[in-house]
Every structure is written in structure tokens, then in C-alpha cells.
């Protein structure tokens, strides 16, 4: 009796595995290993009237608040392009994969996009852990990858087929240093940074920027203050910052922690100019942060790389209203997704009918794109820095008493 059941169990085990295979592979049991590049003119994922592209990012769990608007922005743009007739007669078909911000899921997603779904390109992959984990697959296969929703700096050196758009946090940090020195004439700076991939690159970049400007003395070691993204008490960093008497404070954290820090500033009535990252450059951030810190928020300046003037944003707003009528929140992530799609399509138009991977990459290498939300994206001569021009906006009240961003500087580069 016993042994029967044990045998049954072993069988059941095999069964479970078999079941999982069949369930996952579905009908697409075509070879997953066919890696030999098709020698036909069109690359994988391209037909006479369609181009299939893929994207990966977090769509569920704790960080879904990033992925959801981001992919909506992307889909809004693609829907608009498709409704206008597509690109060179081809409709763009988007395959979305959820990686839950986890590297192993991202690898599985990338594998299924590249080998199983056979997409033409990966567009707007979101999330540093996933981007880092799948970098080697993208590199090995040579598939075009446009726009990374990641501020990681090493993407600028990943390879020919990598086309970053969004400025990396390191670069943004450097540019913040430039603004601190040139706009604010800072003598003593404190950086409060979110202690993860976002904030650490930012604070490093800031220090490097100061060094290159010959102003390393502005930021002391004790002026680098870490906060956790999920912290519930921001007293310590704010107390420390206050005791150092800075004339500029850099707040390098995402919306959640930044609002917490601002509220604490408000509590102790700490009024100094502050600069924060482009991740917070949207109206939804203001809606979140302003109620708790109505006074100090007017000291806040944000970096920005998308041109958020209403006339520039109009196509985005119209498309969102048309395709996602229920979405009330249009934020920096929506814009980022939009730019991702915009940049990819710009390359697609440029490549014309030459839709092999090589052809697309060649076309992208000749591209300097200035018609989109971002002021300028260029990949000419192997440049892979993405957007390098950013501007500073200040939070201010408009006539109706609502908080808005007001552009303070021109779009400039570090140098």
C-alpha cells in the first residue's frame, strides 16, 4: 500500500512538470531554439503589415504604480500611430510582460519575447534589476533595445544595439551639481538620498559633478544622508541636515520618501532651496506632496528632461483621454512611456522598409530626434548617452492658488 502511494507520488511529480510545460508552451510549440538568424530581408517579428515589439516591466505588486502609467503612455502613443495608419503600412503590435521588478522573472520574460514571441525589438524595458539581468541576452542576440526605464549608468556602454533615452541618475546628479554651483551659488550642500539604486547613483553623480567643477568641498561626507524608500520617520535625516546649515539641499528620492522629507521640513520650518530628481517632475507629485508641506514646497526645484509645456503635452493628453479615459493621473511615468514609444517609432520611420536588425540599428545611428517630448535625442556617431539636456523648474503657486512647475532655466548639458 505504502509503496503504491509513493510510486504514485513520483508519477504525480513528473505529471506536474509535464503539465507545467504544456500549459506554458501553449500552441506555440515551434522551436524555441531556432537561433539561426533568418536570412530573409525582414527580421523576426516583422510581416508585410505588422511589426511585433515587446516590453517588460512591473505591472503588479508594490511597484505597479510605476509600470501602470508608464505602459499606458506607451500604448497611447502606439495606438495613435496605429490609428493613423501605422508606420510604412505596418501596424505595431505590443507584447507586454510583467516581471514584478524581479530579475529572474525579467529573464524569463526576455527569453519568451526574443525566442518564443520573436519580437522585432524590445522597447521601454522598465526597472533596473530586470534591465541589468537581461542585458547579456540583449547583447548576445543583438536585438534592438530602445529606451530603458532605468537610471543605471552602465547602459551607456552596453553595446551598439542599446539605445538609452532617459538620462541616468548619475548624469542627473552631475547636472544637479552644476545647477547648485551656478544657479544657487551654493557654499554648503546636503544631499538626502534614497538608499537604493536610484539615490546612490544620484549622490555619486553629484559628488563627481562637484569634483569636475572643482568644488568638492561643498559636500562633506556627513552631508550625505540616507533614507529608506519605505521609512515612516524622517526626523533623523532632516535634523541632521538642519544641523549642518546648508544653503542648498538635494533631495534625491522618489515621490513617497520625498513627500515624507518635505513634511518633516515643513514641521521644523526649514526653508532652503531644494533640488529633486526628474522622477518627481509631474503634477501628481505636487498633488501628493503639497498638502503636507504647503510652505516649504515653494523652495523645491525639479530637474526635467521632457518639455512639459501644455502645447507640447497636448498630443499625449489627447491620446490618453481617447485610449485611457478612466486614467486621471498623468505623470512623469506616463510621459516616459510615451517617449519610449516615440523614440522607437522615430527609428522605425527612419529605417523605412529595411526592417532587419542591422537596418534598424543603422537607421537609429543616424537619428537626431527633436520632435518629441524630450528636447533632443541623438545616437549619431555611436553616442549612447540618451537625453543629456535638462532644465530646472521651480514649484510655485499660480493665480488660482494651485501649485505648478515654472521653468527656470534653459535646457542645458553638463560641461
Amino acid at each position, binding site marked *: 500500500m505504502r509503496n503504491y502511494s509513493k510510486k504514485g507520488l513520483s508519477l504525480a511529480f513528473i505529471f506536474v512538470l509535464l503539465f507545467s510545460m504544456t500549459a506554458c508552451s501553449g500552441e506555440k510549440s515551434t522551436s524555441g531554439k531556432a537561433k539561426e538568424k533568418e536570412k530573409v530581408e525582414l527580421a523576426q517579428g516583422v510581416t508585410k503589415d505588422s511589426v511585433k515589439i515587446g516590453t517588460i516591466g512591473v505591472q*503588479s505588486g508594490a511597484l505597479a504604480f510605476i509600470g501602470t502609467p508608464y505602459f499606458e503612455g506607451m500604448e497611447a502613443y502606439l495606438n495613435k500611430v496605429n490609428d493613423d495608419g501605422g508606420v510604412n503600412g505596418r501596424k505595431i503590435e505590443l507584447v507586454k510582460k510583467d516581471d514584478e521588478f524581479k530579475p529572474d522573472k525579467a529573464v524569463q520574460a526576455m527569453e519568451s519575447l526574443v525566442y518564443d514571441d520573436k519580437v522585432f525589438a524590445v522597447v521601454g524595458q522598465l526597472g533596473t534589476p530586470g534591465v541589468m539581468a537581461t542585458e547579456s541576452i540583449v547583447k548576445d542576440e543583438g536585438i534592438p533595445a530602445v529606451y530603458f526605464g532605468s537610471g543605471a549608468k552602465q547602459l551607456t556602454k552596453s553595446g551598439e544595439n542599446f539605445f538609452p533615452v532617459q538620462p541616468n541618475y548619475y548624469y542627473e546628479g552631475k547636472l544637479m551639481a552644476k545647477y547648485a554651483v551656478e544657479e544657487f551659488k551654493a557654499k554648503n550642500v546636503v544631499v538626502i538620498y534614497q538608499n537604493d539604486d536610484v539615490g546612490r547613483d544620484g549622490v555619486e553623480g553629484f559628488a563627481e559633478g562637484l569634483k569636475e567643477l572643482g568644488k568638492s568641498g561643498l559636500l562633506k561626507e556627513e552631508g550625505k544622508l540616507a533614507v529608506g524608500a519605505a521609512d515612516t520617520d524622517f*526626523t533623523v535625516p532632516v535634523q*541632521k541636515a538642519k544641523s549642518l546649515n546648508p544653503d542648498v539641499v538635494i533631495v534625491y528620492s522618489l515621490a513617497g520618501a520625498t513627500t515624507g522629507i518635505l513634511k518633516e521640513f515643513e514641521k*521644523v520650518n526649514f526653508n532652503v532651496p531644494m533640488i529633486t530628481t526628474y522622477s518627481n517632475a509631474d503634477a501628481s507629485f505636487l498633488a501628493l506632496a503639497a498638502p503636507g508641506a504647503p510652505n516649504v514646497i515653494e523652495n523645491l526645484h525639479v530637474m526635467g528632461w521632457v518639455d512639459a509645456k501644455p502645447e507640447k503635452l497636448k498630443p499625449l493628453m489627447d491620446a490618453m483621454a481617447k485610449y485611457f479615459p478612466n486614467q486621471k493621473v498623468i505623470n512623469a511615468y506616463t510621459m516616459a512611456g510615451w517617449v519610449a514609444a516615440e523614440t522607437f517609432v522615430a527609428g522605425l520611420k527612419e529605417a523605412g522598409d529595411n526592417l532587419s536588425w542591422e537596418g534598424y540599428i543603422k537607421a537609429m545611428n543616424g537619428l537626431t530626434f527633436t520632435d518629441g517630448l524630450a528636447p533632443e535625442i541623438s545616437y549619431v556617431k555611436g553616442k549612447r548617452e540618451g537625453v543629456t539636456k535638462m532644465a530646472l523648474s521651480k514649484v510655485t503657486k499660480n493665480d488660482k492658488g494651485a501649485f505648478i512647475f515654472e521653468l527656470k532655466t534653459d535646457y542645458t548639458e553638463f560641461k
Partner: protein
Amino acid sequence: MVEFFQNVIAGLETGSLYALAALGLVLIYRTSDVINFAQGEMAMFSSFIAFTLFQQTMSYPVAFLGAIVFAVVLGFLVERIFIRPASKATLVSKMIITLGLIMIFNGLASAIFGIDMHPFRKALTMDNMTIGEVIIQPNAIFIISITLVIMAILFYMIKNTLMGIAIRATAQNETTAKLMGVPVSKVYSLSWIIATVLGAIAGVLIAPTTNVSTTMMAEVHLKSFIAAVLGGFGSFVGPVVGGFVIGVFDNLVGYYISLQWKTVIVYALLIIILIVKPTGLFGKVHRKKV
């Protein structure tokens, strides 16, 4: 010295919220031996109710009470639907059920309320007071007092009322409690209801700091566990003291030692305290149910 007091007061304020959540954990643990991992997610759900009600009515008391009423129903339903049918399962299996609840509530909250963060107002919005140079927010005093009051009520209830005695009796010997005519199913329902309400209060009170979002309770929930263990599961004073200690300690370590390493240091200290005093600061040996 000003910074010291500033950090201590803030620590007491956040510590209160850890304490409230910890009291809920301990209450459920004492009656049914289950560690409720979903406590934080349930509190998050209640906070969303408060937020939604506030948007509809613009009345803070309505929002607060609405969240509490919701928590009563939620606690009751969770015990009825998920915990009671598993009465035959082992304790660790029941813990896994609460893990499942985390996923369910988190998923439901995103589906119903969306994934955005929302600002939420404080209970008291009066101007700050200053004593010396130390800034004190009336809201902080309110939070600390409400914790102490709730602790006192709970303590009185458990110690002196018939229901309280019944809760303790059920915790010690369920079958005999039944034989004495104690409706133990009501006792279980009640302890889940109270625990969920405590979590909801913590959630609504922390919301002004963390904003209302599906992830708002992550840190509070984790710290409430630590507070419960530190103070000891054996008493109702323990978790409150544990909460205060964690809140204050976190800040002092962050301020005087290291912001980056404070998590490591605080947890290392926790382990050391447990080794020196395995049942927590206020713990006596808790008899396991047979």
C-alpha cells in the same frame, strides 16, 4: 540636546503606531496562536476606506469611524471565511493562510483603489508648539495618547471584564472554555475584530506620513512584529513598550551612529535582546496550547 529630544519625540510618535499594530498581533496570537502576517495589508485596506470616505464627505471623524466600522466587518469576515474553516490545520498552515491573505488583499486593493499614492490629512492640524527649541506637533501628542488610552482600555478589558477573562480562558484551554458555556467562536471573532480595528487605527494615523497606498504599511507591519517580540507576547504592556523602544531606538541609532547601517544595528540588537531574554522584555513563558 534639542536634536536628542526631537528624535525621541518623533520616535515615540512612530513607536505608538508600531505598538498599536503589535497589540493587534499579540491579541490574535494569544487567543488563537496564529501569527497574522496579513495584519498590515488589512490595515492598508481600512486606510483606503478612510481615505475614500474622506474624499466623499470631507469629514475626518466620518472617515476615521468609517474605517473602524469597516475593520470590524473585515476582521469578522476574515476569521469566519479563512481562519475558522482551517481549524483542523496546523498552526504553521494557518500562518500560510494569512500569507495568502496578503496576496489577496494587496491584489484587491490595487484592483479597487488603484496603485497611486494619495495624501491624507492628520488627525489634528493645529499649529506646532515649542518647548525650549524642541518642536512638538499636537498630532504627535494625540497619537501617543491614543495609544496609551487604547492600551489601558484593552488592558482593563482583558484583566477585568468577563469577556476578557473568557478570552484568556479560551487561549489557555479551548475545550474546557466551551464546556463552561463560553461561546469560543465569539471570542475568536472578537479578537480578530479588535486586532483589525487596532491595525486600522494605526493605518489611518500613519497615513499622513507614508501617504495612502498599497505599500503604506510595509514598514509599520515589520516593525510591529519586532515590537511584539521585543516586548514579549505574554503581556499587553510589552508590545507597547516594545513599539516605543523600536521607534526611539531607530532614530537614536540613525542620528548618533549611522543612517546606512541603522537597520542592521537595530536588528542585531533585537537578536541580542532575545538571546539574553528569550521571552521578550515583559514576557513570561507562554503556555502552548495542546
